[in-house]
């Protein structure tokens, strides 16, 4: 206590910070960093999970560099990011912004948008797969053909399949983003809006000059977190393409699905670890760049 009292204010802050962080630090080191370091080691080894590990140097990375499937998958992963993040964020912001202004049956409306996020991914993937089928069983194609429009091959196509799988992923994630946006909108003090109304500022200017800047912490969170989410997309793709994972012809395969397949179908743990390290590097760079850009603004 004596010691503590003699510390300067900034030193006290350091002590308090580590007091807050002590237990979590142990947790993260043991439960998260250690296995991650393990994966990095593993990427220089060969291991089929059953036998002994053997060192192979950079073999796994060389193999990855020369793997045509990897480059295809690499491109797909970025497609998911580049389409998924902006589309989902714009839609969810618009919806959240308007739900925020609705009073009548507000809870019901909010729940309607959130329910998809709560429902089992496996079950939903099946429903969407069914929707996308050609006639006679597909809902969308039956709908189209009742207007005399030609059928669309949603999933059995190398060009349409990726957006067709992204759609349910965006759909399922909307509820999450809407809730975060709404929590953010509600953290903005009402007084700012009152002041704006009194000054006769238009709704659009209010949105641009007050809402969005004050929403910045929320936006930073959602941009970074959603980007990580789309770069790590797995569940939707895996469940939507159960009969031909990542197909047709690898046109929908994201990196995490490739990692999963390498680890638990081929049992090539070292190679899977090398892919994981690459994924980690991509995610880290993308997140750091986003944090930097959004901070400077």
């Amino acid at each position: 206590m004596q010691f503590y009292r003699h510390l300067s204010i900034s030193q006290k802050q350091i002590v308090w910070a580590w007091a807050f962080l002590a237990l979590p630090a142990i947790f993260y080191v043991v439960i998260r960093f250690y296995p991650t370091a393990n994966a990095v080691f593993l990427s220089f080894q060969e291991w089929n999970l059953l036998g002994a590990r053997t060192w192979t140097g950079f073999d796994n990375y060389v193999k990855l560099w020369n793997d045509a499937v990897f480059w295809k998958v690499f491109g797909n992963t970025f497609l998911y990011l580049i389409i998924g993040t902006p589309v989902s964020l714009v839609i969810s912001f618009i919806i959240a912004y308007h739900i925020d202004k609705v009073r009548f049956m507000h809870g019901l409306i909010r729940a309607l948008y959130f329910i998809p996020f709560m429902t089992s991914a496996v079950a939903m993937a099946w429903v969407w797969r069914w929707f996308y089928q050609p006639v006679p069983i597909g809902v969308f194609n039956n709908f189209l053909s009742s207007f005399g429009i030609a059928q669309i091959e949603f999933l059995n196509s190398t060009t349409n399949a990726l957006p067709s799988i992204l759609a349910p992923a965006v759909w399922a994630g909307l509820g999450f983003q809407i809730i975060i946006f709404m929590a953010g909108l509600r953290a903005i003090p009402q007084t700012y809006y009152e002041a704006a109304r009194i000054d006769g500022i238009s709704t659009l200017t209010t949105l641009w000059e007050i809402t969005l800047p004050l929403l910045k912490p929320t936006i930073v969170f959602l941009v970074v977190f959603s980007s990580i989410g789309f770069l790590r997309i797995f569940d939707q793709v895996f469940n939507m393409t159960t009969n031909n994972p990542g197909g047709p012809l690898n046109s929908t395969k994201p990196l995490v699905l490739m990692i999963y397949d390498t680890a638990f179908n081929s049992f090539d743990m070292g190679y899977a670890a090398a892919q994981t390290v690459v994924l980690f590097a991509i995610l880290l760079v993308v997140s750091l760049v986003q944090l930097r850009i959004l901070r400077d603004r």
Partner: protein
Amino acid sequence: MSASDLTIKPTADALLSTKMAKRRASNAQFIRWLILFAGGVLMVMPIVYMLSTSFKYPFEVYNLNLIPEEPTLENYQLVLEDGRFYRWFVNSLFIATITTVSNVFFDSLVGYALCKFRFPGRYIVFIAILSTLMIPTEMLVIPWYLMSTTFGWLDTYWGIMFPGLMTAFGTFLMKQFFETVPDDFIEAARIDGLNEFQIWWTVAMPLVKPALAALAIFVFLGNWTAFIWPLIVTNSQEIYTLPVGLTTFSVEQQVEWELIMTGAAISTLPTLIVFLIFQRFIIRGVVMAGLKG
């Protein structure tokens, strides 16, 4: 200066125009409501199909009709009469609840420290924690398993729970929301003689209730649906979680979809309840009241 000072005494003309403006506003409000409602109905259509399928016999599963020709409760009977179902349900509830409490506490603790304290290495600690989001769970499962064998955590509730007790997701979320808490409040509390822990708990936490509610919903959901790790770490059916238990409906080379839909329908119910409980906290007002003072 407060809003009431500026209120102008209404003249008859102004009154009329406000009335019209109000009507126009309420028309706009109505259209907004209608569009949002229609969009919401579209959003839940796949879930309606899921529910519809759960009332169908296998032979009707791929029929497009929303209302089954021969509705049946057989699927629900099949799922619910299996006594193990309740056990799995309670297990999931227990695990998801504990994990949620732990996350709400620790994630906001860490998020607050990263947001409001100035200390060397702050950004590095933040990035290090954030980086844990960047490794797919699939790659962590084997090290966790080996860890659990060493510590004797296999086939226990603790074994299922431990990896999820804190998450980078929650930490990041809370850090961002603590940024909306004005530093003046914290300074004021310090002057009042509160220690940092008290400031966090009694001053900062109430101000981020909407975010805490969102965090609680997401952590609960994430643990309610977690699959791969609970599967790997458990051996006995007695401690299976619901998602692991429900996979007994997908067998080799085929899946009984009507049962999967039934299981999904039943397991969505508690999450819906949790959502309805917590979404009430996502309300406005706390921060506003604070600023006025």
